[in-house]
């Protein structure tokens, strides 16, 4: 769509109806323009086909009155050209033909003309035809406006729904991809490589036992705000929030080559950004709190799980279970990782802050796995 056309679509709602008259006879074009102006419309003229086409592009009129018999490009050729160009195809064209020329009407229909006007022109006929097309044009524009409004509304609804799970940046990308084959959030379960990160709040239970309910909710909101901010900062997808624990995933729904690094940086940010809050809470309640994190990667199932009444977009499988177990054993300010994660992020942590915890057999697991603990340095 040309800029002029786009502009007219915007301005057209408030401005008058604009008609371009194309006729090689200045007496005819002036006559027609005069009649249209008398009806309160804007009219401009062009004296041949080439000028007519140029003016349709430049001025984006709401209607074209087009003479058939012109030297150079005939009205049929001009009509066919305008109708085959995506930028101008929607502009209605009235072909002005001699009264006794039925062959011209057939050719005009073939060229895509929207209506015909007989020459000599009867004023009443001109006004009636143009007014009909104007109404049609305005109805079409109103329908188009409503369709666009609905589309915008739908996109906003999708954005709001997605933003509960994923970062605004990812939501935007999903809308751009229009669902990437519609499979991103499809009901069909997918087996995917994920990095699962579980975080929870150490020491919080003893605070809840001695604090007012309202205050507990406000505290949890503050804590989860920090954690979800950190998650979104590194484009994680949030899968679950329960009690004081949070499950986020990487490499889903979009592949992230640096998923492991993103997960570690997220963990570090969660721990360090929560530290000042922990200090404040300790002064107030006398209890030490802090975020503990478990990260593991591997194959998992990504699916919408639930019943017709309640579904949850979630990841299921060993890396998720393992991350949960690691989180349970991680003390405040510590990130526990399985080896596969550590191998990919080792350059992010100074070796004096990492401690191999050997092979640990986790509760409910048969095979022992190598575990690494990274201590996050928090500001005092």
């Amino acid at each position, binding site marked *: 769509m040309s800029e002029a056309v786009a502009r007219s679509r915007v301005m057209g709602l408030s401005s008058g109806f604009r008609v371009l008259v194309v006729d090689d006879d200045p007496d005819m074009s002036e006559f027609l323009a005069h009649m249209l102006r008398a009806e309160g419309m804007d009219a401009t003229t062009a004296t041949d086909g080439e000028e007519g086409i140029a003016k349709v592009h430049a001025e984006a009129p709401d209607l074209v009155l087009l003479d058939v018999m012109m030297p150079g490009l005939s009205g049929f050729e001009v009509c066919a050209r305008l109708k085959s160009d995506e930028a101008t195809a929607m502009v209605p064209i009235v072909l002005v033909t001699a009264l006794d020329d039925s062959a011209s009407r057939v050719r005009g229909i073939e060229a895509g003309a929207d209506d015909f006007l007989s*020459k*000599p022109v009867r004023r009443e006929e001109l006004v009636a035809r143009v007014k009909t097309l104007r109404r049609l044009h305005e109805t079409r524009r109103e329908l188009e406006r409503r369709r666009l409004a609905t589309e915008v509304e739908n996109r906003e609804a999708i954005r709001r729904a997605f933003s509960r799970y994923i970062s605004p940046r990812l939501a935007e990308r999903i809308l751009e991809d229009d669902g990437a084959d519609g499979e991103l959030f499809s009901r069909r379960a997918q087996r995917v490589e994920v990095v699962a990160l579980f975080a929870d709040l150490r020491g919080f239970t003893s605070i809840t036992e001695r604090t007012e309910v309202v205050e507990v909710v406000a505290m949890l909101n503050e804590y989860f705000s920090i954690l979800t901010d950190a998650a979104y900062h590194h484009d994680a997808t949030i899968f679950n929030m329960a009690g004081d624990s949070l499950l986020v995933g990487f490499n889903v729904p979009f592949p992230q080559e640096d998923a492991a690094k993103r997960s570690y940086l997220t963990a570090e940010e969660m721990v360090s950004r929560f530290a000042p809050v922990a200090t404040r809470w300790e002064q107030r309640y006398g209890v030490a709190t802090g975020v503990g994190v478990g990260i593991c990667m591997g194959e998992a199932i990504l699916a919408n799980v639930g019943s017709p009444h309640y579904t949850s977009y979630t990841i299921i499988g060993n890396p998720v279970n393992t991350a949960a177990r690691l989180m349970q054993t991680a003390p405040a300010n510590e990130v526990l990782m399985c080896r596969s994660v550590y191998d990919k992020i080792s350059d992010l942590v100074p070796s004096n802050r990492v401690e191999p915890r050997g092979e640990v057999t986790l509760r409910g697991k048969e095979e022992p796995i190598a575990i690494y603990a990274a201590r996050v340095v928090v500001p005092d």
Partner: protein
Amino acid sequence: MTQSGYTVTVAKDLADLIPSFMSNRRKELETLRTALAASDFEELRRLGHRMKGAGSSYGFDLVSTIGKTIEDAAKASDAATIGSNLDTYEDYLAKVEIVYE
């Protein structure tokens, strides 16, 4: 309008356009004469067709009638008919009275 008295009634709001319309007709007559002298029937046909479209639109029915006759005669390369119609046209342009209503 009557063909004998050459009186044409034109809508008042078209008054501004009439001087230019009449001046174009007089130029047109010259062009028609030149074309006829050169036996340029294609140009005569084109001009006749144009007169046919413009004339009655403005209320000058005889211009359309003469235009159609010239157009048809030009297709048949009938110089005599065109010649006599140009004389009528010249007479008409000299005598026509315009009433605005």
